[in-house]
Every structure is written in C-alpha cells, then in structure tokens.
C-alpha cells in the first residue's frame, strides 16, 4: 500500500510556548488553557500512529540569513539538529528525518508538479518547527515518536509566495505522498499565525474576528482563503499574520472529505493562537 495522509493540523508556533514548556510552566493559569486544548490532540495523534510528520514552518533567522533566503526549502536528511536562534539551544533531542521519503518528495514535486524547491541536507530546526512538535508529540530522552520532514516557507521577506501558491503546493504534496511505495502514515502540520504584529506602533495588534473567520473557512472554504492577498491579511490581521499562508499548504494536502476534529483559540498576549485538526477517514 502506498503512503497516505492520515491527518492535518493548523496551529500557531509562538516562541513563548517553547519557553513555558522548557520551564515547566504549561500548567500555570496563563498557559493551562492552551495546554489543556492539546491533551486530546496528542491522544488522537497517538491513536492515528503516524510514521512521519511534514512540518510546514518558517525560518526566523536560524538557518537562513538574507544573503540566501529560499522561498520553499525541503529537508532531505536523516536527522535535524536543534538550532540556537540567538537565545541558546533548547534541551530537546534531535529530530529523526526520513531521507528516502524526502528524496521521493523532491523528485516528484520538481519533476511532476514543477515546484522547484531548495533542497537542504542540513537544517537545524527552530521554534517555528519545534513548538508545534512539542504541542503535538511527547518526546523521550532519545527522540520523538515520529520522523519529520521540515518544509520551510519564506513568510518574512517580501515577495512571499502567494496564498494560492501555498495551497497548490499542498495539493502537489498530496499527490507526491500518494505515489511513495512504502506504507507510511503521514500527518501534515501547517504552522504560524494567527493574527499578530510585532513591529511598529501597531505592535500587539490582534483581530479575533479575522482569526475565527480563518478557522471557519480553512474548514469550509479554503479556496476562498487562497484568494486572500498578503496585503489583505496584513491589513486585517497584522503584518506578521501572513504566516497563515502556511496553513494553506496543510489544507491543500487534505482531501475535500477531511473531517474537522478539534478547534481552539487563545490570545493571551500578542498572538492569536489557533488550533484546528482534520482527519482523513
């Protein structure tokens, strides 16, 4: 049986969650609402028994500097180290990759679907990748319960790929996964957002009604979200909210029949932290 996607998740990757996690603060009143929302999600994921997680995230100046900044970059390694983003290296085990699976994704995406990705044989993963991993999976001393494939998207230096392009990349990924001959169960995580702005006088801007609309539509009408321009997202949800285009990679990789399972929203400080999950039956 070829590989298939069993689930997709849209979720935020706020760095303060990593700090709270490392300092054992997830059960404090400020973080408990978020921590509680993920308990059933981890149980659900454990039942689905995924082999590989494709994590769609963006670099925040850990791997890539502006001398060379790829629009889309895919990890093609057996292991990914933990990055120092400027605040020290988090005490987490390195992440197991699946280089054969990555090679298949690169070949099919580039040859058949004409997505000309940057291919990375060394990547050190950072909060954009690790916070979602922390929220979704429990790691042991030696590693994580799933292998992972990092898929990096430029959402920080305009021109960014369009929301539509991200959606199409997801659709292409679905086809690529379905032609991999090994029987892998794949989950895909679209990370980032929701509304936030981290610079200028508008620092701290959030828009819960936009975020709730996005959660509604990522389930009901993702094609409509794929028509949003960067300008529209930034005006309505803050400049850094453009990260949400990465959720469309995830949604594009799911079938129209995918069933929504969990949904949550929490906005304590400066970022609307959203969560939505879908299962393929």
């Amino acid at each position, binding site marked *: 049986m070829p590989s298939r996607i069993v689930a997709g998740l849209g979720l935020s990757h706020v760095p*303060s969650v990593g700090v*709270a996690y490392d300092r054992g603060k997830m059960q*404090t*009143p*400020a*973080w408990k609402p978020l921590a509680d929302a993920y308990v059933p999600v981890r149980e659900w994921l454990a039942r689905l028994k995924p082999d590989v997680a494709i994590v769609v995230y963006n670099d*925040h*100046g*850990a791997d890539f*500097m*502006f*001398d060379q900044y790829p629009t889309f970059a895919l990890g093609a390694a057996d292991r990914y180290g933990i*990055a*120092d*983003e*400027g*605040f*020290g290296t988090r005490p987490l085990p390195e992440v197991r990759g699946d280089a054969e699976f990555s090679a298949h994704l690169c070949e099919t995406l580039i040859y058949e679907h004409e997505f000309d990705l940057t291919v990375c044989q060394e990547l050190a993963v950072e909060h954009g990748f690790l916070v979602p991993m922390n929220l979704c999976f429990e790691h042991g001393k030696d590693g994580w319960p799933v292998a992972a494939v990092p898929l990096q998207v430029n959402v*920080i*230096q*305009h*021109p960014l790929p369009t929301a539509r392009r991200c959606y199409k990349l997801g659709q292409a990924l679905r086809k690529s996964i379905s032609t991999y001959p090994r029987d892998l169960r794949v989950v895909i995580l679209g990370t980032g957002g929701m509304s936030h*702005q*981290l*610079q*200028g*006088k*508008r*620092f*701290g801007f959030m828009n819960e009604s936009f975020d709730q609309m996005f959660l509604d539509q990522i389930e009901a009408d993702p094609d409509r979200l794929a028509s949003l321009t*960067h*300008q529209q997202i*930034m*005006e309505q949800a*803050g*400049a*850094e909210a453009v990260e949400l285009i990465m959720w469309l990679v995830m949604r594009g990789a799911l079938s129209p029949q995918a069933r929504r399972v969990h949904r949550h929203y929490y*906005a*304590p*400080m*400066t970022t609307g932290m959203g969560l939505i999950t879908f299962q393929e039956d």
Partner: protein
Amino acid sequence: MGLTPIADTSIFDLRASRRGYRLNRMCGSLCSPANREDFKRDEEAYMNHFSLSESEKRLIRCRDFAGMIAAGMNIYFMLKIGSVTGNSLYRMGAQMRGERYEDFLATRNFKDAV
C-alpha cells in the same frame, strides 16, 4: 501586485532588507554563543567587524528599536539583539508603541503568558 503602505506598520521587503543588510547580518551572527560573548565584551568592536555605519551604530547603542526597524532591521533578527541586551520582545514592543512596559502589559488579555 506590489504592497501598499499600512499605517504604523513596517513591511519587510527586499528594499528594506537591502537597507538593513549589515544590521541583520550582525544580528544573525548572534546565533552563536561565542559571538554573543564577543558582542557583550566589546560592542563597538563587534559593530566595526560588521561594518555598521555611524547611524546604525547609534541605533544599537541607544537600543532604539523603532529606529532599527526603520533602518531595515527584520523583527526576528532584532529579537536576537534584544535577547543579548536584555530586552524581551514585549519590552521592545512597548518602546515601539511609545509606552511604558507596564502600560503595554495592561493592554493585554492575560499578561502572565510571557
């Protein structure tokens, strides 16, 4: 296709990135613990090593975060200089808003989630 200005917002595009190239390059280097120690030991020498202009050096010396963004600093790279100088995201944010830190925190839904 191009982006149009948004009030009180900086859009980090290629032109800003080009303008802020030296600043961002210096902040990117702070992903190494040894470099962070070098910066703390001698900021001026560190800035010279990255060929910062006099006005860029002044922004770093004054911890002028709004000025850094205007000079083409990327927010995620600014977090690295914030960390090494003891300025959290929220402290930098309060300064960019032109508010005291405590006043900024008072505008939040749950200010303990830091």
